[in-house]
């Protein structure tokens, strides 16, 4: 393909070759927006709804942006880990490496008008919402240049302008807040949705089910996104988390596949705007 063609045509010393290749590689691929179709690796499993198609449309530009963003997130988290071990980041530091596909896939499916709220594992989600590395590291190290002026720390990243609502320390408390964001979207009639992310610790919290009940009752456009963390067998009687909503539809997605996440989020947004929580 274009890649190998470029490689063979680049000339120069062995020393400069990788640099030249890297430099000349970037331009032709990244600006192409021709659609490419990809199949998700694993089919979707559903609860009370029809699954979306496994065929996802993407483009070389999007592919490269996925790669760039995910690589940045991974490197960032590893760097944060080193800083934490060097005691330059104090308190708690919850890392997102390994889950980058979720953040990146979600961003690809939605706009900045939609709201995202998550718990304390928020570094990469913040980056995905438009945060800069400088803001992130400043905040982690308690500096004024941080996104919360150094007053929040690892668990309290927010970016109001891009609809990122944090960043919360207490497990599960962000889910009712997320339903409140969805309520505000419905109140303001702005055709946007709220994504409330949580893990399996929060999945056993009463307030989650309370919030789900109210959201279903009031048809709020909220999407509850669950990701793994605690050992299933230790804490949960029913490990089928996507079915736990009972009367609320659910979708099981392979979180390692950014395309599946993108498709699922697009589907979920349409569903939430039409028929309420999912």
């Amino acid at each position, binding site marked *: 393909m274009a890649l190998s063609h470029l490689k063979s045509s680049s000339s120069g010393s062995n020393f400069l070759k990788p640099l030249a290749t890297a430099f000349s590689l970037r331009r032709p691929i990244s600006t192409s927006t021709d659609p490419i179709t990809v199949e998700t690796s694993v089919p979707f499993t559903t609860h009370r709804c029809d699954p979306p198609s496994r065929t996802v449309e993407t483009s070389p530009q999007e592919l490269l942006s996925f790669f760039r963003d995910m690589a940045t997130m991974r490197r960032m988290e590893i760097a944060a880990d080193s800083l934490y071990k060097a005691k330059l980041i104090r308190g708690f530091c919850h890392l997102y490496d390994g889950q980058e596909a979720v953040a990146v896939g979600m961003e690809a499916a939605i706009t900045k008008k939609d709201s995202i709220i998550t718990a304390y594992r928020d570094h990469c989600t913040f980056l995905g919402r438009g945060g800069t590395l400088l803001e992130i590291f400043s905040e982690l190290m308690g500096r004024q240049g941080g996104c*919360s002026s150094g*007053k929040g*720390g690892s668990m*309290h990243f927010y970016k109001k302008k891009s609809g990122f609502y944090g960043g*919360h320390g*207490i497990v599960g408390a962000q889910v009712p807040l997320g339903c409140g964001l969805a309520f*505000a979207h419905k*109140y303001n009639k702005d055709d946007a949705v709220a994504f409330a992310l949580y893990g399996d610790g929060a999945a056993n919290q009463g307030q989650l089910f*309370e919030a789900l*009940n109210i959201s279903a009752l009031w048809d709020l456009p909220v999407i509850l996104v669950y990701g793994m963390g605690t050992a299933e067998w230790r804490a949960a009687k029913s490990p089928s988390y996507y079915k736990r909503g009972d009367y609320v539809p659910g979708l099981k997605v392979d979180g390692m596949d950014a395309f599946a996440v993108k498709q699922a989020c697009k589907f979920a947004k349409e569903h939430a705007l039409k028929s309420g929580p999912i």
Partner: protein
Amino acid sequence: MATIFQGLRGGAAAALTNSIDSKKLLSRSTRRSLSERKVSFPVVRSDGSVNLNPGGSNARARRVDQLITNAVATKADSSAASSTSKPGHELLLFEALREGLEEEMDRDPHVCVMGEDVGHYGGSYKVTRGLADKYGDLRVLDTPIAENSFTGMGIGAAMTGLRPIVEGMNMGFLLLAFNQISNNCGMLHYTSGGQFTIPVVIRGPGGVGRQLGAEHSQRLESYFQSIPGIQMVACSTPYNAKGLMKAAIRSENPVILFEHVLLYNLKERIPDEEYICNLEEAEMVRPGEHVTILTYSRMRYHVMQAAKTLVNKGYDPEVIDIRSLKPFDLHMIGNSVKKTHRVLIVEECMRTGGIGASLTAAITENFHDYLDAPIVCLSSQDVPTPYAGTLEEWTVVQPAQIVTAVEQLCQ
């Protein structure tokens, strides 16, 4: 028969009656007009006894309780004559709250109310009556019994710019939402580096009622006072109830507005024109020279009753309703301490860790040199509120105790 209470601004002492002589106070016509409205709500009788009937039918709780002391100051002359001559209009405290709420909802489309039974039922104390019909289901929201989550939802909505008013059916139920109030409501403004303001108002009735039992007679102001980032106010008259409600809704900070179960039926004449009360100001109820009595909410009425006795005995107490529980209005309090040099705090909170305890510390820290005697703080007993009426009475500060305390303080 509703008790009439005239506002005590401007320093006029309340005219108080004993339990014996007030039968002529209220005319039958008042009672009839109330029943015509087909509303059943707790009624404070002229002799101080109360029928507590939170939102139930007329038949249910019409018991006459002879043991209750005068909870509310009453006016000696008849109320029926006073309607037409003065400006303003008369209403009950819950109506004043509703008026304030309605005016703010008219003024700002972002204001919404959420709570249990606030919508179609009209509110368990009728504060939101009629609002659901007027503004629709999206602005007056009936929630299921899920305090933790609907308080969280209110806060989430406030983060985006809406101004929700979260009603706890009883303040005690908000303990279930303590996490949301403390961690999210109080702290989000700070932890987000100022990006978000949380203009939420959390309100509800609290305090010791009439034999409601321990769990429904809680005073949450002492638990909430340490939460950084929130403001607390307590209303006590229809005038300040409406004013504080409006100010709280307009404030960009989270405000907790404490109402009292027994004060919802106080009647007062309030101005027709729009007004708001300052959230951080105290109210001078009765200027005096001998002793400063600081109080708030229902205890204001016990204090005014005791004040009547004290005046007869020759004392001149200065009574201040502190209204703002967090932060304290140390300006007015300080000026008063500098004048009288003696402080008595009368509160309904528990002795340990209550508002009185904080106020004592604040006054001692700031005005120690002006005090001629140690600050005396009269609070409720550190016990769960008993069901039996006699026992319940003894856990709360009574006017006789206030009189004794002042006498001892002024020796």
